[in-house]
């Protein structure tokens, strides 16, 4: 299997746009064939094939921009094995020439004017970049990290193939010292321009935002999300909650929110569907025996997710008290780190803002998150009649590496059924 990479077509080129594919999947490609038109910072140029084979997969579609060295297509023998092999990682551009070491730089660069089109994938890079325990880092980056006490697993690499290089570690070290230096920008080209633009000011990143950015980026890059939305008739739930709150008030108990009921229902549904209470990490699947629910709380400084442990074993009012207390302490910045970690499933609710429905980003290492919208009165058809019902839309985002569509659907079915028959939530 041979990858076709985004070539360097000019000295200043950092990324290129596939303006058109001139070959289709399944086409035989011979050396010298024009496979695509590449738009560089200077011109549109033809990308010639450097190897032969059958174009088995197009990894980067027309109109998309990727850094040089990124695999854009796969050449194979026509057996279709490319489809199974898939891209090594679309997030991390494949290593360039220097990674292979065997590459004849002079020859390739002399000819690079018209495309160092394809190159065998370096074997030592393997297929599982990005998930290994040991982050890829240059020796210099490692030495500096040792010296300055920087944990490389917290550093995002900006070198070829996501390699952590000196500038990344130095930026991390500066951050650790609390000096206000700009974080390494994911779009290096844009950063300097922003500094010069008087209409744009840089907001120093809070630690919460930095962690959120890193973890959610990893999540979206590594976890293949899929989404399941259900419309839940919560007419009974709303009435049930009102009833419940009246009784609780009479006995001096706490007030229970719709969200508390949703959290409890999730915990119950997870107990019934342990296949959703899982984590996918380092090419391994872990099933959690306990159910710890993260409940997202929006703060001015960012998003925090306090954890209600063993939510399936707590009553709705216990969840309500604990959730409220932790949300308050989160707003005061007094949550302890262990109160924000260890969740096995999360719930995010934007209903209070009138959001009808939305899709949340999975909070790693969890395998799923439930996004809860607003309760709205809607016209529904029941037994052929129009009726006004209170409807709630909930969307499950699930990591397809760990949870299959049908498994997620069964979970959603049971969750919906619980929410529509709320007495069972407290059963």
């Amino acid at each position, binding site marked *: 299997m041979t990858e076709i990479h985004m070539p*360097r077509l000019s*000295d200043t080129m*950092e990324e290129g746009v596939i303006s058109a594919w001139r070959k289709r999947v399944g086409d035989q490609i011979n050396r010298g064939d024009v496979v695509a038109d590449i738009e560089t910072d200077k011109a549109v140029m033809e990308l010639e094939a450097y190897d032969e084979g059958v174009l088995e997969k197009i990894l980067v579609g027309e109109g998309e921009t990727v850094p040089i060295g990124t695999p854009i297509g796969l050449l194979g023998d026509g057996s279709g094995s490319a489809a199974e092999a898939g891209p090594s990682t679309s997030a991390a551009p494949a290593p*360039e*020439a*220097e*990674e292979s*070491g065997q590459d*004849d*730089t*002079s*020859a390739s*660069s*002399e*000819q*690079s004017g018209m495309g160092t089109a394809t190159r065998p994938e370096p074997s030592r890079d393997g297929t599982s970049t990005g998930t290994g325990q040991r982050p890829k880092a*240059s*020796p*210099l*980056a*490692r*030495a500096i990290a040792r010296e300055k006490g920087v944990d490389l697993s917290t550093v995002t690499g*900006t*070198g*070829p193939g996501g*390699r952590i*290089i*000196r*500038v*990344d570690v130095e930026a991390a070290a500066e951050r650790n010292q609390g000096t206000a230096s700009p974080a*390494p*920008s994911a779009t*290096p080209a844009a950063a300097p321009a922003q500094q010069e633009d008087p209409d744009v000011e840089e907001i120093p990143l809070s630690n919460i935002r930095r962690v959120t950015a890193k973890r959610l980026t990893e999540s979206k890059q590594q976890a293949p999300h899929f989404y399941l939305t259900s419309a839940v008739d919560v007419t009974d739930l709303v009435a049930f909650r009102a009833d419940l709150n009246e009784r609780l008030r009479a006995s001096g108990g706490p007030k229970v929110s719709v969200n508390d009921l949703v959290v409890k229902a999730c915990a119950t549904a997870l107990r019934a569907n342990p296949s959703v209470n899982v984590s996918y990490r380092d090419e391994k699947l872990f099933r959690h025996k306990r159910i710890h629910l993260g409940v997202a709380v929006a703060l001015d400084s960012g998003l925090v997710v306090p954890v209600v442990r063993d939510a399936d074993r707590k009553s709705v009012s216990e969840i309500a008290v604990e959730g409220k207390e932790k949300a308050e302490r989160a707003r005061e910045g007094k949550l302890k780190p262990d109160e924000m970690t260890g969740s096995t499933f999360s719930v995010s609710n934007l209903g209070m803002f009138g959001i009808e429905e939305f899709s949340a980003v999975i909070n790693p290492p969890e395998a799923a998150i439930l996004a809860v919208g607003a309760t709205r009165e809607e016209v529904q058809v029941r037994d052929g009649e129009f009726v006004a019902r209170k409807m709630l839309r909930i969307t499950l985002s699930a990591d397809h590496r760990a949870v299959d569509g049908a498994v997620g659907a069964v979970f959603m079915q049971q969750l919906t059924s619980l929410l529509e028959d709320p007495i069972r939530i407290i059963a």
Partner: protein
Amino acid sequence: MAVITYRQALHDTLREEMLADENVFLIGEEIGVFEGSYKITAGLLDEFGHKRVRDTPIAEEGFVGAAVGAAMLGLRPVVELMTINFSLLALDQIVNHAAKIYGMFGGQCSAPMVLRTPGGGGQQLGATHSQNIELYYAFVPGLKVVAPSTPADAKALLKAAIADNDPVLFLENLALYNTKGEVPDEVAPAEIGKAGVVREGSDITVIGYSRMATVATQVADRLQQEEGISAEVVDLRSLRPLDRETIVESVRKTGCAVIAEDDWLTYGVGAEIAASISDGAFDYLDAPVRRVAAAEVPLPYAKPLERAALPSADSLTTAVHQTLEAVGHRR
């Protein structure tokens, strides 16, 4: 201080050394009456006579062997091998005799001789006459191999080579003979085995020797002017002994390196340098060492193909850019 060609520097040095020491004599093909294929020995036959400027038959093994014998008996022969390609015919005399005598015979006698010879392609001389095979000799303990890139270095190193008591292969380059440079009036013999930082820089180390050292300097100058890139250039000057210290020191400073060599990539001189960097500067490397070398083909005769196969300022520039990109230069 005078600005003279590399050719002139070699000629002047040979003449000076012959004037200074009557044991120094020249031997080789076409060096006398014809004044040398590349005119390095012009006028020397007239000045010093047939005894000290010996034209030989086309028989490399014979005249190199004769020089080995002369050296063992106390003379200081300076052999001209018309090009390094023809040194292959004398390989046994060089590798099995000149290089071994001192060690194999308990230091009873040495072979203080110089084998001057040009390498290099780019002259449309075809695959057999365009090689860069100095590596064959740099591989052999008992030999020294020096490779000056400038007229001043040519002078200083040729003096050192003639004064040295070991056999020295003195690598010249067809593309360098007409290059000019400043040469001080008084040039002291160089220290063989000492590389030079010919241009200081902080962003990247570029290492070369012979022709590619001059290309490296030109590229570095242009990158500084046009892009503000600060490239440090190390001119090896000597392939054996190899000045690993200077290489390592530079890479420790810059964190990355590109090696420019006229020979083939696989097993080439650059491989040894890269290994030295790995040994001495591993914890200082922010990107893999990159090599720029000739395409792995017998050098084509056709001009465009020959040009495409040889490393160039362009290919070196590209390699420097790629490496700087890998270390996040200016990010």
